[in-house]
């Protein structure tokens, strides 16, 4: 194996590694799907974790290959080159590598290959996707233990990772679309994982239907791209005729519609207004799913798509600005909604929508690196927040209402610290991850050459204040103060798969019949082997708090990658992503083939340091407000709340957006459906039944010929043959 790899150049190795990354989760999927139910059962997480670990390892190798000037001695040892050569790795590469492994399908001149497109953007995405996935897989093996359909869960997760890695590594739009739909399907299946619950089924359906809108837009955009560029290959689209002004003028309407439709595709997947409504409901899925798919990875696919297509967006600035405006508005709206939610997971869900809005704000002011940096840090701290909340949920027996619990730090010390770190990051407290990435976006917006940029930055700063407030509102309520536990604490959440789960365990059923009314839940819990006495720690097994600690360390450290470790005064992230054409102010013409020219520049209105100071102050202020109202004087919060009753109701009802949809879209469609049903009755009664009766009539006429007697069939055959021969002889000569 090792010898085999020696024959390739470093570029070829990188391409091979990239091609192998989706294969490991795919193999895990196949193994779990085939053997999960009968053979693996409770060990179904083993192939999934091994598969994702292999992928993560390969992704790390890719990261090293594409990294510029770091870890040279490790690289030299790994790739059998000298340190001097290692120094050149990455710097020597063109802005991207691509390789075609096989043809997916071809029709005439239209060929779609299975190929990879490697540049720092896809490498960064694939490495954090696989890395976070690995941690969450491990967490899930503890969190989901003993759940009915355990193997199903890991099969879906492996499928998700396969699709997600395909999405970020693909070298053409259609393959991206394959991954795009694959992650959508995995998301649908995982949101509906507890399918006996009606709310889970409805949430899954909602997610799927809302995503249909975006996916349709994306599909139409792909058709338009093919019509315009006669290729779906990234290299051909971005580095080809797009760079010529006359071509763009000739296709000016396409140059408007393609980015607009791509934007809607991205907005549905990344839950931006007005297509954000599916994401909070998607929290019906198991918490690791919320952490992985609906916070860290899948919802950032829209950011990836726009960052990847930035060369197209750069040539239609109104659409790019629209991305920024909607992103900013979503950030603000979701943050205000998060202030008045009481379900811990829903708070984080709206916070995810809000943070995604920040990322689109960054993209809208052509600060791709900052947006991707925020994706990167957000993946860490949001996964951390969700997983910590999952631990809370696990310990509290499925209860997540922040009004019913308090002071949990005394029972869940590790979880408390981890969630605190996540909250500090989310709030943008100086020194933690969210601080650096969010402020980079805000200062980019402030310095945008577009006059709207500073306005976006202003709303972004206000949102940052709100973010700090709602984050610590949740933290102070749940973890600080006097100890209050909900009734269900210490119990395992009653399984929605009650019948199948209990059917497998007769001894418990016998035992249960002798015990208290709660015995069913107790028995179920004992069955899972971690029945927690009420006065001990609720932190859970190491498979659960281990990944939390790693993520907490990550959330503390990754922000500094935006400050140190790069060339000159840049952070590592900036210099790593510098070669990706997605930033304003870069006149990009380094290497073949042709280079890119991005026509957006930036100005200096505010220095990055000033931005950081501003952001830090706002974060601290927000935390202090939360500290006063939710720790020191919780009664004051009630007073303020009743004083602002209409506003609070408005926010508690999530700006009534679901209701607006219900009355503007769902009800009209429902009545339309009723009307069409009436039309259908008419059609059914007259037209369709005629077609039904007509064959009956023919059959009635021809029925006597079916005598069931062999000889008449033979007579029919032979006379027919004779007539054919006669016809040929005398009619056709």
């Amino acid at each position, binding site marked *: 194996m090792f010898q085999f790899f020696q024959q390739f150049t470093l570029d070829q190795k990188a391409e091979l590694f990239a091609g192998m990354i989706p294969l490991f989760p795919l193999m895990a999927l196949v193994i779990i799907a085939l053997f999960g139910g009968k053979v693996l059962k409770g060990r179904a997480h083993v192939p999934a974790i091994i598969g994702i670990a292999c992928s993560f390892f390969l992704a790390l190798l890719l990261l090293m290959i594409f990294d510029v000037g770091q870890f040279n001695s490790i690289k030299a040892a790994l790739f059998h080159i000298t340190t001097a050569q290692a120094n050149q790795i990455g710097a020597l590469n063109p802005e991207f590598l691509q390789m075609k492994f096989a043809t997916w399908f071809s029709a005439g001149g239209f060929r779609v290959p299975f190929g990879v497109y490697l540049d720092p953007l896809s490498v960064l995405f694939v490495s954090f996707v696989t890395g976070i996935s690995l941690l969450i897989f491990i967490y899930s093996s503890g969190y989901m233990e003993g759940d009915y359909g355990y193997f199903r869960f890991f099969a879906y997760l492996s499928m998700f990772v396969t699709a997600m890695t395909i999405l970020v590594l693909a070298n053409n739009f259609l393959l991206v679309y394959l991954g795009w739909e694959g992650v959508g399907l995995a998301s649908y299946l995982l949101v509906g994982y507890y399918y006996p619950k009606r709310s889970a089924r409805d949430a899954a359906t909602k997610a799927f239907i809302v995503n249909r809108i975006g996916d349709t837009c994306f599909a139409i955009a792909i058709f338009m791209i093919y019509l315009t560029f006669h290729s779906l290959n990234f290299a051909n689209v971005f580095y080809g005729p797009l760079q010529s002004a006359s071509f763009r003028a000739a296709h000016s309407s396409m140059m408007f519609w393609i980015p607009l439709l791509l934007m809607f595709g991205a907005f549905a997947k990344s839950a931006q207004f007005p297509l954000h409504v599916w994401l909070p409901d998607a929290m019906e899925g198991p918490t690791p799913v919320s952490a992985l798919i609906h916070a860290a990875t899948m919802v950032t696919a829209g950011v990836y798509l726009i960052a990847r297509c930035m060369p197209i967006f750069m040539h239609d600035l109104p659409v790019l600005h629209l991305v920024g405006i909607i992103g900013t508005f979503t950030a603000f709206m979701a943050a205000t909604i998060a202030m008045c939610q009481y379900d811990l997971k829903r708070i984080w869900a709206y916070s995810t929508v809000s943070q995604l809005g920040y990322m689109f704000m960054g993209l809208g002011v052509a600060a791709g690196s900052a947006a991707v940096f925020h994706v990167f840090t957000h993946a860490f701290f949001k996964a951390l927040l969700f997983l910590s909340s999952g631990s809370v949920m696990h310990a509290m027996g499925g209860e997540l209402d922040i009004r019913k619990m308090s002071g949990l730090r005394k029972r869940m010390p590790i979880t408390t610290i981890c969630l605190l770190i996540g909250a500090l990051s989310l709030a943008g407290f100086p020194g933690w991850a969210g601080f650096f990435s969010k402020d980079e976006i805000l200062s980019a917006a402030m310095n945008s050459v577009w006059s709207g940029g500073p306005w976006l930055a202003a709303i972004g700063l206000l949102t940052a204040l709100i973010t700090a407030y709602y984050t610590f509102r949740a933290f102070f309520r749940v973890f600080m103060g006097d100890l209050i536990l909900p009734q269900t604490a210490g119990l395992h959440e009653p399984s929605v798969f009650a019948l199948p789960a209990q059917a497998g365990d007769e001894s418990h059923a016998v035992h249960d019949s002798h015990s208290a009314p709660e015995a069913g839940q107790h028995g179920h819990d004992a069955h899972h082997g971690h029945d927690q006495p009420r006065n001990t720690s609720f932190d859970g097994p190491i498979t659960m708090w281990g990944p939390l600690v790693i993520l907490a360390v990550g959330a503390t450290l990754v922000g500094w990658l935006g400050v140190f470790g790069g060339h000159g005064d840049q952070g590592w992230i900036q210099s790593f992503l510098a070669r990706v054409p997605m930033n304003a102010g870069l006149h990009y013409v380094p290497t073949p083939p042709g280079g890119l020219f991005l026509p957006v520049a930036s100005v200096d209105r505010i220095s990055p340091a000033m931005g950081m100071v501003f952001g830090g102050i706002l974060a601290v202020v927000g935390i202090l407000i939360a500290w006063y109202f939710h720790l020191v004087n919780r009664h004051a919060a009630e007073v303020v709340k009743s004083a602002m009753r209409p506003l609070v109701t408005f926010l508690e009802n999530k700006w009534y957006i679901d209701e607006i949809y219900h009355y503007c879209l769902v009800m009209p469609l429902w009545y339309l459906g009723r009307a069409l049903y009436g039309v259908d009755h008419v059609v059914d009664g007259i037209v369709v039944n005629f077609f039904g009766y007509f064959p009956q009539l023919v059959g009635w006429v021809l029925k006597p010929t079916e005598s069931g007697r062999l*000889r008449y069939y033979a*007579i029919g055959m*032979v*006379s027919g*043959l*004779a007539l054919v*021969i*006669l016809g040929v*002889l005398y009619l056709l000569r």
Partner: protein
Amino acid sequence: MDYPLIIATACGAIALYLMMPRAQGWLVKLGALIGVLALASGLSYLTHWASVAFPAQHAAGPGVFFYAFALIAIASAAGVVCHPKPIYSALYFVLMTLAIAGLFLLLMAEFIAVVLIIIYAGAILVTYVFVIMLASPTGVAAAAVDYDRISADPLVAVLVSFLLLGTVLETLFTHAPHGFIAPVAAGAAAHAAHWGGLAALGKNLYSRYTLPLELAGVLMTISLVGAVVIARKNSPHTQMLGLGDVPTE
């Protein structure tokens, strides 16, 4: 249109119609008479046809053995179809097989002729005779059975079959003079010298048709097993089809 041919075919049809098993036994003898007439007219038509269509080759007739064997084959085939007792039909069939084996000898297919006698007259016919013996009602039941003594719709059957025969013969006799792809003239004699006999057949079977030959063996095995399964009393197969034996009281 060849009226003599049509008349001969029609005579044959009438003959066969009359000879089919029926209540009126005397009609059978009339049918046999007309059958002889039909064969005779067919023979005279052939002579006439050959002299008109192939004047140059008139001398190269097939020889007396062909006519003898053909006559026996046709007559005994009619016997098979028309005899009201299956066991006699089977014996007529043996006679027909022997006649056809003779024709095969005339056609220089000695091996096929021998095989035909062994398989048809030896194996298949023995099976038929067994089944006829096994599955024939006896005693009182036999008297009530009429399905061998009276045929069903003989007129339609004969009309349709001889319509087909008429069209085929018409095609054959009118088109043959310009019809067949002639054997390659050059070297045909040399080819002929190497042709014929068992060696050529064996070489052909075991070179060109090796795979089909093996598959034929597989087919035989399958049908052997299948026959055993099907014919077994109360086999799972018959039960599965809901065809199990009617339980005896």
